């Protein structure tokens, strides 16, 4: 049960700055996710919390106490890796028991804990197998079990689901949520998959080029992205961006935009919020259909509108073909506006 604090944390590799002045508090028992494109520094943060990577400057605290200089084994953390990092020469039982045996837990207790964890993760039939005899999902569960068995203060997960196929990934996501409910341990999760981050986390932190771009509960980040990066990264399919001055053409928006009238800006609208209809109505705009993509429940349509390619949503049955004209509406309350030069949210 630990609160984790990052205080002006910096990390440099040679001269390149990887993490630049990170200040953040992760609450006790929180499921907290760092999400961002590859190379944004999220794994580096995890490794610094684990003690596998040194800190250039700043401080990381557990419950207010600096953990600087503590070797990984003494931080009372457990980590799950993308490759699972199971010890290939040990059976599942030995893998699960390893953190306990290193800590010289008596063999009887060890045995009992292994049985308990194996039952929890449905691994009992595989205890005497070697990792290479297991499927991806089973290996993943062994890796989780090895982390859980010690009842650590903090859980670190480095893209633990990335090696699984899509169906299994969704299953394990639910499994992770269940485990976090059963063992409410402060968890730091790292992923590049925004959907995974949204689905799992109490709060997410968006990282880009070593800097924190936005931090908050997933719904909040989704509803009010703080900047262009955040707007483009969260949400699938990604938000449409339309540049600048032409927006005065939209009569229903004029009043809202009045105060920004002479500034260059970028308007964003999520494809889910952009309704496409077949016929012209009041307040509709028209565009040429470029591309259709059906997912069953919805059809995504890419339109060309005044030199912009924008994507919108329509119901499952839509008789539109390429190069035809389609009409769309932009609900004004769903519009996001960003300053063009700074990328910050205006409204």
């Amino acid at each position, binding site marked *: 049960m630990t609160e984790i604090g990052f205080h002006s944390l910096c990390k440099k590799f040679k001269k390149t700055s990887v993490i630049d002045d990170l200040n953040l508090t992760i609450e006790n028992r929180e499921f907290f996710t760092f999400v961002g494109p590859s190379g944004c520094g999220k794994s580096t943060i995890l*490794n610094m919390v*684990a*003690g*596998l990577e040194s800190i250039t400057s700043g401080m990381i605290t557990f419950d207010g106490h600096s953990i600087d200089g503590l*070797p*990984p*084994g003494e931080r009372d*953390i*457990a*980590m799950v*890796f*993308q*490759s*699972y*990092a*199971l*010890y*290939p*020469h040990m059976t599942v039982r030995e893998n699960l028991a*390893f*953190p306990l045996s*290193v*800590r010289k837990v008596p063999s009887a207790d060890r045995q009992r804990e292994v049985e308990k964890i194996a039952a929890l993760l449905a691994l009992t039939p595989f205890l005497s197998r*070697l*990792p*290479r005899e297991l499927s*991806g999902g089973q*290996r993943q569960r062994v890796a989780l079990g*090895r982390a859980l068995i*010690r009842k650590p203060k903090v859980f*670190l997960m480095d893209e633990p689901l990335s*090696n699984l196929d899509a169906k299994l990934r969704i299953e394990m996501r639910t499994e992770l949520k269940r485990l976090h409910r059963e063992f409410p341990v402060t968890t730091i999760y790292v992923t590049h998959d925004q959907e995974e981050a949204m689905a799992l986390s109490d709060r997410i932190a968006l990282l880009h080029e070593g800097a924190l771009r936005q931090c908050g509960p997933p719904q909040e980040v989704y509803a009010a992205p703080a900047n262009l990066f955040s707007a483009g990264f969260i949400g699938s399919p990604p938000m449409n961006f339309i540049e600048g001055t032409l927006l005065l053409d939209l009569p229903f928006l004029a009043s809202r935009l009045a105060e920004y009238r002479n500034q260059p800006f970028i308007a964003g609208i999520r494809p889910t919020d952009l309704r496409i209809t077949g016929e012209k109505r009041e307040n509709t705009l028209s565009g040429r259909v470029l591309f259709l993509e059906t997912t069953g429940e919805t059809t995504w349509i890419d339109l060309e509108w005044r030199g912009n390619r924008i994507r919108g949503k329509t119901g499952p049955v839509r008789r539109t073909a390429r190069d035809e004209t389609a009409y769309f509406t932009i609900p004004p309350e769903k519009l996001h506006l960003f300053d063009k030069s700074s990328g910050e949210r205006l409204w």
Partner: protein
Amino acid sequence: MKRLVFAALLMLVSLYCLGPFLWQGLTSLKTAADLTRLPPLLPHPPTLEHYRSIFAGHPLLRIIANSFIVATASTVLALSIGSLAAFALAKLPVPGKGAVLLLVLSTSMFPPIATVSPLYLLIRAAGLRDSPVSLILTYTSFTLPLTLWVLTHFFRNIPDELYRAARIDGCTPWQSFTRIMLPLAAPGIFATAILVFIFSWNEFLFALTFTSTTASRTIPVGIALFPGLHEIPWGEIAAASVVVTLPLLFLVFFFQRRIIEGLTAGAVKG
């Protein structure tokens, strides 16, 4: 057809490699009179006379024991130092790893003949002349570069995440070395052990220079000193050669199984 050609080629290569050894084996079984005659190609009748005489007339067992001690000690020493150093170079944040490896490699580029006299002076100054220790130290130093290079490669091939996982699970660097890294590098350890052992078993130049009595003399030197004043006992040399090759063969066959076992026990994912 393809298989036939392949088999024929394989036979040819085997014959080429095994030829001298077979010849030596045949020679060791021939009577003294048949030794210099051809035909007969095959010993007729085969005789074990040479084998009897090498064990009766020479301190061969003592020499084999010396070789065994020297080779085993060199192997153990080279692998103990080499595996630890290789682990550090592959997994720990050591500054200038590349430079260290190159420096180590460069020391093995001097031909032995260039280093034999300075080494002899060192050995004599240390009072180690005619002692197995002189050979153990020399062989260890000569096989360390190879050991280091091969093992560094093996340790590098073990995913970093396994080392990290071990550290997080509570291991000190030493524990993660003995409990995780070493078992996983076993194939490399065995392969290197065989190479170091064979080198130490067969080495001639240093052994000839540093030893002077049967107290420390090793096999290659021992056999080289077989010839007497007036004759070269080909039969006995051949018999001794066969005898001292057998332990190596046994060693390789034994460890070969371990190497293959080790190789198939890898696999982190997929």
